[in-house]
């Protein structure tokens, strides 16, 4: 029984990424300046970065598992950050009302995506590319391209708002708790409910899903709605982390989310992968990005793309070799 469990774990794609992740951490902490990498400040920063990315990478993973893609999460993060700070600082709403409004709006965005994709038979790529541009611009229109700060004179809820992205409970950053809550909730949804089974089924074979009497539209609404909802949540957290809503921010974050989801097993053709894989992927990306500062002393930023790209490719190749090896063994 235990042996079976171990064997099954070793076989998952996520396991390969965890191994790469552990090797990377060991490597970084063994370098000259790397001793601080596993120090408390570094771990707090790192876990917060992983959580911020993880929140919306989970949503992206759900859409990818459902056989779709959502390119709009990046600029939706920027826009919802602006929307949230606007409601707080300009419209004088309470924190709870602002957060609820932003989350409801975001979920609505996903439902509209699903409707457009389903009713007009449009490609998810095109629909969400359209919204990518719209959110970028609407945020700029709303603010004349000037960020909206949330200081105590702007809103009585300023401190509570700043706590979301910057605060710590028992020395662990608040976004980490939020991300873990999201991870558990979405994992339960994906693996222990009918809805989750439908999402996997939809990603595997849309036609078969339709023929078996499952509502494709409803399933898409849930997948895209969840993805946009989590982008909205990330937007609130990023706005708090940046202490202001910044129009035009979040650009290209969708690529990070897709990379995080795909690197540990979500297949772009749908039906495969897990949401925890997306969080592990987010961990891998951020360990690389933070580690670069410790390992490379001069010109670190110029190395980012090369290092991230190479490790993504190596991980993908290792994943494939692992799967081939396992299928031969069987």
């Amino acid at each position: 029984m235990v042996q079976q469990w171990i064997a099954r774990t070793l076989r998952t794609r996520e396991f390969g990424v965890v191994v790469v992740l552990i090797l990377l951490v060991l490597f970084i902490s063994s370098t000259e300046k790397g001793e601080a990498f596993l120090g408390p400040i570094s771990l707090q920063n790192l876990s917060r970065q992983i959580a911020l990315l993880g929140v919306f990478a989970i949503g992206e993973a759900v859409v990818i598992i459902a056989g779709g893609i959502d390119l709009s999460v990046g600029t939706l993060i920027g826009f919802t950050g602006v929307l949230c700070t606007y409601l707080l600082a300009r419209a004088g709403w309470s924190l709870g009302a602002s957060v609820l409004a932003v989350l409801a709006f975001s979920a609505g965005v996903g439902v509209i995506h699903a409707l457009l994709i389903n009713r007009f038979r449009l490609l998810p790529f095109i629909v969400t590319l359209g919204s990518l541009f719209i959110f970028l611009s609407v945020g700029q229109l709303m603010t004349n391209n000037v960020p909206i700060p949330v200081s105590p004179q702007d809103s009585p809820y300023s401190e509570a708002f700043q706590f979301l992205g910057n605060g710590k409970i028992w020395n662990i950053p608040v976004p980490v708790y939020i991300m873990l809550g999201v991870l558990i909730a979405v994992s339960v949804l994906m693996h222990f409910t009918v809805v989750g089974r439908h999402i996997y089924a939809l990603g595997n074979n849309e036609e078969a899903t339709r023929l078996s009497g499952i509502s494709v539209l409803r399933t898409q609404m849930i997948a895209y709605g969840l993805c946009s909802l989590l982008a909205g949540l990330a937007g609130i957290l990023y706005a708090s982390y940046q202490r202001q809503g910044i129009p035009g921010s979040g650009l290209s974050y969708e690529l990070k989310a897709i990379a995080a989801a795909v690197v540990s097993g979500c297949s772009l053709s749908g039906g495969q992968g897990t949401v925890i894989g997306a969080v592990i992927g987010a961990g891998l990306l951020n360990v690389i990005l933070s580690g670069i500062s410790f390992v490379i002393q001069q010109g670190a930023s110029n190395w980012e793309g090369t290092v991230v790209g190479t490790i993504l490719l190596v991980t993908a190749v290792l994943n494939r070799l692992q799967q081939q090896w396992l299928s031969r063994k069987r």
Partner: protein
Amino acid sequence: MRNSGIYIVALAALVLMTAGCGKKEQASAPSTTGEKKVRIVLITNGNSPFWDPMEVGMRKAAEELGCEAISRRPTTDSPALQRQIIEEYQAQKVDGIGISVIESDTIGPVIDELMNSGIKVITFDSDAANSKRIAYIGTNNFEAGKAAGEAAKKLLPEGGKVFGFVGNQNAPNARERIAGFKEAIKGTNIVLVDVFDDNKDPAKARANVENVLQAHKDVKMLLGLFSYDGPQIAAAVKEAGVRDKVKILCFDAEPETINHLKRGEIDATVVQKPYEFGYRSVQLLYKIITLGDVDKALKEFEAESGYKVAPGNVIDTGVEIITPQNINDYLKRLEDLGIKSS
């Protein structure tokens, strides 16, 4: 349930990682303080060639003082990314950090946290006056805008319509440059008709210039307010074949700007002193760290550098106007400092 194994492994890893957060500062090993070199990091607001001479100045100062200085250029101008990078060096417990602040609302509180944790912080190029930063070294952008306005008066004695091009006209440095320019042209026939945003996309800047040249045949001068705007203006004007009708005034000295100046394709550029940003930032941080007394450090700095420390500990390094006439002298001086052409 088929994936429960990986969940348990990953959760365990997360718990282990976050458990490390609980440990207090003592985790860092006691270092051999006597031998340790002072470590200084300068973090820019982006990755443009503007920062090349800054790094030359930084290395020169580090070499002279015998300290370690490195620079870090974020790949985008995202405040979240700059904050992340600053926090990485906070974790490394460097002695001093200089920052060209992307957004003072985001970075100001981070600076306060660094100062509280004992890391000395100054700002350069772009300030966060709302923070506990010790001093600011950079260009007074209002004065730089005024210098541009004075140059415009010389180039357009009769006056005329001017259009401006900039990354984001609401960015603090852009606002100040525009205000300074307007101040200088007050009472003349020069009018700054409009300013166009390009969100730091040079291709967008080029398109903006092309549109203005098409829509306003009576334009007399194009003003490039950010470093990459000058070359884009020069290229668009050349392409449209209207060089004889339009004056070009810009900021900074990117390699392409210098090439255009040498060929007389740009009339004047207002240059800041990025070499000085790097050199003086390291010099000042080193004094603050080694003397342990800010007032004493600033006094010594004032005496040695020849710069005045203004109220609020603001240090203006000034600007120069470079034209096709004096470009060669300027390049010669840069070469003597060890800067290629930028």
